[in-house]
C-alpha cells in the first residue's frame, strides 16, 4: 500500500514535467499543424541558457529560468517567422525543417558546451520525508510551476483575444484570415509561446535530472507518446495524458522493471490508438 502511494507520487512528478513539455508540442501542432521535431532541442537549449546565465553571468537561478524561457521563445519566434512560415502548409517540409533545426541546435550546443554534463544544480535540494514516503522539494516546485503554466496557458488560449484568434486560425485559416486575423503575426507568437514553454521546462528540469547536449531525443519521444494519447492539438488532453503516462511509467517501471515497463507503455498507447484513434480528448483525426 505504502509502495503504491509512493510510486503514485513519483508518477505525479513525472507527469508534471511531461505536461510542461507536451503542452508546447501540442500547441504547435494544434495551431500551426506542424510536428515540431526541434521541440527537444528547445528543452536542451533552455537548460543550457539557464546554466550559462547562472554560471557565467552569476544571475540568480529564478532570473536564469526567465531568461531561458525568453531566449528560447525568441529563437522560436525568429525560426517561425523567417523559415517555417514560408512552408507552413506543407507538413513534410516543416517536418524536415524542424528536424534540420534540431540537428543544428544539438550539435551547436555540443560544440559550444562540450559533450559532458556540466555542474548545474537546483538551488533547493531538500527532501520531504515521513512514514516511508519521500518527496524532493525540487519536484514540488516543478509541480507548482507546472500548474501555474497550465492555468496561464488555459487562460491565454480560452480567455484572451490572442487565444481566440489562435483558435480561429487553428480551425480554419482561410476563414480566419479573411476576417482580418493575421497568421504572419500570430503564428510566430504561438510558436514562440510553445518553444518558450519547452525552454522553461528545460531550465527547470535539467538541474534536477541532468544537462547534456543529447537529452532532447527522449524528450521528443515522450512528447509524441503524450500527444498521441491525449489527442493531437488538445491542451486538456495533453495535460491529462501527461499525468497518465507519468503514472503508468512509474507503476510499470516499479512493478515490471524498466525495459518491460517501457514496452507496456508503448503497447498501451498503440492499443489506445487502435481503439480510439483520435486520442482521449482529440477531435476527429486531422487531415494534415
Amino acid at each position, binding site marked *: 500500500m505504502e509502495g503504491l502511494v*509512493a510510486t503514485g507520487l513519483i508518477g505525479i512528478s513525472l507527469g508534471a514535467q511531461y505536461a510542461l513539455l507536451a503542452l508546447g508540442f501540442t500547441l504547435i501542432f494544434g495551431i500551426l499543424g506542424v510536428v515540431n521535431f526541434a521541440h527537444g532541442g528547445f528543452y536542451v537549449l533552455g537548460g543550457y541558457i539557464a546554466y550559462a546565465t547562472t554560471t557565467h553571468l552569476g544571475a540568480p537561478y529564478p532570473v536564469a529560468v526567465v531568461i531561458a524561457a525568453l531566449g528560447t521563445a525568441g529563437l522560436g519566434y525568429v525560426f517561425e517567422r523567417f523559415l517555417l512560415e514560408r512552408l507552413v502548409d506543407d507538413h513534410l517540409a516543416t517536418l524536415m525543417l524542424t528536424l534540420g533545426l534540431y540537428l543544428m541546435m544539438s550539435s551547436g550546443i*555540443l560544440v559550444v558546451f562540450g559533450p*559532458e*554534463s556540466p555542474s548545474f544544480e537546483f538551488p533547493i*535540494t531538500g527532501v520531504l520525508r515521513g512514514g516511508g514516503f519521500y518527496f524532493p522539494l525540487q519536484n514540488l516546485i516543478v509541480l507548482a510551476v507546472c500548474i501555474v503554466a497550465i492555468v496561464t496557458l488555459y487562460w491565454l488560449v480560452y480567455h484572451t483575444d490572442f487565444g481566440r484568434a489562435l483558435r480561429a486560425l487553428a480551425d480554419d485559416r482561410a476563414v480566419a484570415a479573411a476576417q482580418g486575423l493575421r497568421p504572419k503575426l500570430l503564428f510566430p507568437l504561438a510558436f514562440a509561446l510553445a518553444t518558450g514553454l519547452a525552454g522553461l521546462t528545460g531550465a527547470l528540469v535539467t538541474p534536477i*535530472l541532468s544537462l547534456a547536449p543529447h537529452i532532447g531525443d527522449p524528450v521528443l519521444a515522450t512528447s509524441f507518446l503524450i500527444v498521441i494519447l491525449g489527442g493531437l492539438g488538445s491542451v486538456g488532453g495533453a495535460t491529462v495524458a501527461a499525468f497518465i503516462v507519468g503514472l503508468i511509467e512509474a507503476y510499470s*517501471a516499479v512493478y515490471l522493471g*524498466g525495459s518491460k515497463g517501457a514496452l507496456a507503455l508503448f503497447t498501451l498507447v498503440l492499443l489506445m490508438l487502435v481503439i480510439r484513434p483520435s486520442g482521449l480528448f482529440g477531435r476527429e483525426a486531422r487531415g494534415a
Partner: protein
Amino acid sequence: MKTTRRNVILSGAAVGAAMVVPRMAAFAAAPEVKLGVVGVLSGPAAQWGLALRGAVEFVAAEANRDGLIKIDGQPANVSVVAIDSKYTAEGAAAAANSLAGQGVKMILGPIGSPELTGIKPIALRNSMLVMGNGYAKDAIGPQWPLVFHQGPGPSGWADPIIKIAKAKFGMKSVVVVAPNDQGGTDIASVDAQAYKANGIAATEEYYQRGTTNFAPIVTRIMNQKPEAVDLASSPPGDAGIMVKQLRQAGFEGAIGRLGGPGYSEISRVAGGDEVLKDFYWYEPVFIDEKVLKIADDYKTLMKTERPENNLFFQWVSAARMVAKAIAKAGTATDTQKIAAALRSLPVEDPNLGAGGWIGQKFFGVNQELSFPFGVGLVVNGKVQPVQRVDAATET
C-alpha cells in the same frame, strides 16, 4: 506523372554527375604507414572518439619523431586517417570500408560493442588488423585472429575491484543496473557473476536507453533493499541522476560503477562528492606522474592540450603497441605478420608500466592487452586517492 523525355534525361545526367566522386588514389611514394582511426566523433559519446583520435595522432607523431618504423630499411612516415563511426554498427562498417579503400590496413578503435560487432566482418574480408575496445562478451575470439582488445572488459577487472569494495564497504547484496541494450547487458551480467563469485547476492535491473528520470527504477531498486548498487556501464549522465535520486530516496549503501571511467561527470551531475557518499569505480588507467608525462609530451609535440577524456592514455598505450608491432614486422601491409609480431611483443609501456596478454579463458584467444589500472573510491563523501591495481591476469 508529367515527365518529358528531355527532362528525365537531364535529371539523369545530374544524378550521374553526382555519382562520380573524386576517388582518393592510394599513395605510392616513400614508405607510408597509415593508421586508421574508427571512433565516434559526433554526438553524445564524441569525447571517447576524440580521445582515441588524439592518442593515435600523438603516437604517430612520436613514431615519426623517433623514426621508429622502417620499411625496407627506410624510415616510414606515419599518418592518421580518422573516420566517424557514429557509434553504430553500420557507421563503423562504413568507416572500415572507407579505410580499406584508402589502403589502410591497421585500425585503432572502435570504442563501443555495436561498432566492434559491425567492423569485424569488414576487417575479416579485407584482412585488416583491429585494435578495438568494447565490452561485449564476444568482443574478440578465435574466429577473428586479427582483432585485438585494447584493454580487458569486466571479465578482467570486475573481480579485483569487487574484492576491494567488499573489504571497504562490506556489502552482502547488490543490484546491478544498466541500460537494456548490448552496451548495458553484456557488462552488467559479467559484473553480477563476479559479485556472486565473491559471495555477494546480485540481481540485474535494466532500464530503457533514453530514460531521463530514474525515480521509478530507483524505487524498484529500493524495494529489493540491497546493501549496494552497481551502475555498471550506465552512461555517466544517467549514473549521476541515479545516484542523486537514490540518495533522495534515502539509500545509504555504497554505489559502484564497474563499467568505465566518468567519475567526475557523475559527481557533477549527482551534485558533488557528498552525494556520492560511498562510491567505487573502475579507472582504466592508474594515473600517476609517469602517466601524466604523456600529457606534457603531447603538448610539446602536438602544440595543443591533450583530449580531456582519460581513455586517451589507454589508447596511447594500445597505439604504441601497434606501432611497435609494425616496426618489428617491418611491413605496413602484411597484417598477418604484424599480428604475429604483436602477439609476441611483451606488454609494456614506458608510461603505463608492464602488463600481459590475457583473454584465453574468457574469449578463447590471448589477444587482450592488460595494463595496471585503478580503483577509485569515495568514502563518506571524501575522494580517496585512486588505488593502483596490478594488471589483471587470468588464473
